[in-house]
């Protein structure tokens, strides 16, 4: 049952369908990962700006 690399890649003639399925999965999951990590980074940046503007507002009132 040992298959050559070429046979494996050919997928019995179904290569375009099989490999585009797995390729699409890779692309969508990388996009998912980038989307999630990007959302977290953006949320942290927004919160940091909120804290900083709150701090400068306090400073303004005191002076």
């Amino acid at each position, binding site marked *: *049952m040992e298959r050559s690399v070429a046979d*494996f890649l050919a*997928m*019995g*003639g*179904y290569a375009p*369908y*099989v490999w*585009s*399925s*797995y390729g*699409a*999965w890779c692309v*969508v*999951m990388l*996009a*998912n*990962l980038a*989307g*999630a*990590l990007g*959302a*977290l980074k*953006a*949320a*942290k*940046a*927004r*919160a*940091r700006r*909120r*804290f*900083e503007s*709150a*701090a400068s507002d306090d400073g303004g009132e005191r002076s």
Partner: protein
Amino acid sequence: MATWTWFHRLASPPHVYRISGAFLPWLALFTALFIGYGFYGGLVLAPPDYQQKDAFRIIYVHAPSAWLSMLAYVTVAVAAAVGLIWRMKVAHAVAASAAPIGASFTFLALLTGSLWGKPMWGTWWTWDARLTSELILLFLYLGYLALRGAFDDRARADQASAVLAIVGVVNIPIIHFSVVWWNSLHQGSTVMKLARPSMPGSMLWPLLSSLLGFTLLFAALLCVRLRAEIIDRERTASWLRPIVGAA
């Protein structure tokens, strides 16, 4: 008593932020292991199917995507219901975080299904019950996300989108039983049925591994998105200060 303590702690944003971070490395590790074995077993170890030959190997990415499209939707609906009933902000955050991930798995289920349908059925698409109800699921996700985006006020977005998510859950049993209730080009269940699964172990174990791996991947992505949602919802709560690096 202990159950209620546990439930109340799940309502605490700092607690959920902390545990979702603690779970993440483990989720990432086991996601890689289970999907790694699932894809290797499916693409290399499993023999070609006697009817579909090597084209059947699409099942290892298609079926888990379809499973996640439904599991993620149920997650959204249940979390939204908990958020409405107990006015729990964290639950609404879970619903909002799960939806975009679920939408991506639904898109993948449709795309890989199409790539499998073409060589097996001779068509990319057909308006049959299984395919149509799965397409409706994608529209439900997109409607849910669009509805959330239409509100400036987060609390109102939570409530309106929760109602949509809960009503839409009726589509989930329709998707699952569509191949039983209607004549369909789509094949019946392989794993999720009362009788023994209709696959030999060499094909089945990688599929189960892939199903579990996709589920863990969903949980990992959910943890990251949930943390982002919690930060946005907590505004300027003091516990966020060190986390976001504010002085």
